[in-house]
């Protein structure tokens, strides 16, 4: 891809706005269409664009599979952990009312946290699936399961 100057420059220009847009969809999801799943896919698409233009190896160096494994798991833990915090504060599982003194704020925080967990897991898993497909045919030692 070294010779495709246009592609490389456009990709460089686009990747950062795509990530910003993903964050917008993520954190504005409770007021407008969007949310964790959509944001996660958009974020992953930025990484996939990076891999398509600069090579999978470069992306793997920037976002190693071992990190994805941890972030994918952490996302689930953030989701379930939010529910458990509600339980520990006296409510039912995922009863956001108990997250803050004001139930309206509680619902707001709860939704943001849960969606953040979803986004994190979705972005990590979509990228990891892309790595697996892109990495087919390499020697097994290179894989990170």
């Amino acid at each position: 891809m070294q010779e495709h100057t246009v592609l490389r420059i456009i990709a460089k220009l686009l990747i950062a706005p795509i990530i910003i847009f993903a964050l917008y969809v993520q954190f504005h999801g409770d007021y407008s269409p969007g949310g964790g799943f959509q944001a996660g896919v958009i974020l992953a698409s930025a990484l996939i664009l990076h891999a398509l233009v600069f090579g999978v190896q470069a992306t793997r160096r920037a976002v190693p599979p071992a990190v994805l494994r941890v972030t994918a798991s952490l996302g689930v833990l953030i989701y379930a952990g939010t529910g458990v915090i509600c339980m520990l504060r006296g409510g039912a599982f995922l009863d956001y009312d108990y997250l803050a003194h004001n139930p309206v704020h509680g619902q707001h925080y709860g939704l943001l946290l849960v969606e953040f967990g979803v986004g994190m897991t979705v972005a990590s898993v979509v990228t990891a699936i892309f790595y697996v497909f892109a990495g087919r045919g390499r020697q097994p030692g290179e894989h990170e399961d």
Partner: protein
Amino acid sequence: MIVQLFHQMPVLVVILPLMAAPLCVIAHRALPAWLIHTAVSWVVFGISFLLFVETRVAGRVVYALGGWAPPFGIELVIDRFSAIVLLLVTGMSALTSLYARASIAAELPRERAYLVYAAMLLCLCGLVGMTVTGDAFNLFVFLEVSSLASYSLIAMGPSRRALLSSFQYLIMGTVGGTFLLIGIGFLYVMTGTLNMADIAQRLQGVAHTHTVEAGLAFIVVGLSLKAALFPLHAWLPNAYTYAPSSVSVFIAATSTKVAVYALIRFVFTVFGADLAFDSLPLGDVLIVLSVAAMLSGSLAAIFQTDVKRLLAWSSVAQMGYIVLGFALATGAGLTAALTHMVNHGLIKGALFMAVGAMFWRMQACSINDIAGLGKRMPWTCAAFVVGGLSLIGFPGTAGFISKWVLLQALMVDHHWLLAAAILVSSLLAVIYIGRVVESLYFREPAEGRKVARGEAPALMLVATWTLVALNIAVGLFGAAEVDATRQAAMSLLGVGQ
């Protein structure tokens, strides 16, 4: 705080495995992942036991997720029926966790072992979720959670054919899941709600529309696929044969039972027995299919050379007994179905554990490979013999209790032919179990085959013999079990009417 947690038990059984699975992935090593899996499995089993006791006293435990009152929010409902299934699933998970360490270390590459533990926890989460949920759509979601986890578990089997059999299961399982979803969609169209109790109430006026009848048909076919009811069982033999041994143990003992549980739950709690069995011929259809399953499964088992595959075909036959009891749609029939769900879990768990231990020793488990093992692995082989006797229905074992209860249920309604079919199928079981036992005890190892000595590791034996002991205990003191299952069946019929 403790009292607080006591009220949270219905949701804890679901979310503890859900949270433990990512922890296993983060831990990334076999030993910590196994420790997490074992600890969580036993804790969940303990909670399930408390829930079981609670339902014995209170009858029903409900929990509104997120504080949203049903029918708008998702509701978890544990009654006497689901409490018994819950106890079976979590108990098997706890015993499998003891068994899994040595078995998985021998069958899988070290760096993959943590994934098995994580996926087993997700599978547990899905199965438990299906059992405790009171929401139709939520049941579908948990079915998919458990199914996806089991596809990946089967694919991790030691031979390359595991991938193909997992793919077969993936296709069939997805068809089954989709049918279930379509059926639930039809119900939603007619009632505008997803809460099972609420659907049941709103169905009163519209029960005899084609939409609802089609919904029932889709749900029955979809769940029969997951339950491997004849003739939708094609995925099962390969899946059980090529999965890692401890996965075979866990899935064979729980997964199909939970599918049947979900079917019973839909038919009796949501649709009501009147619609399914009086207006529609569900009972007749299921009786024919279950008899076909009993006979064809047992016949096919006789001609298998691989012992795991033999047990898998036997599972197809045993699902016939369970569905037959359910198809009678009487209190006695349901009691028999639930009793055999539990007992078959205990029997198949013990048998698959014994075969897994032989595989651990020999790295193969065809009838020829295990010839003469009786002298070299006495405890494992004895466990197989007792499990086999229980499968046949020998007096003093759990299998006898199930068959006795089922025969009683058939006799009451004068189904003599069906009773005869059960006896024939049991005789066929004598043949296929007899073939394995003959090879274990009365044949010499093949010439030139290296003679492996020594018993399986202690933890594997402990898990296997716990199940064997449970088989005998149920066989000797079956009245307590049948009493519990009868109460459960009655509570279900009470809700359904």
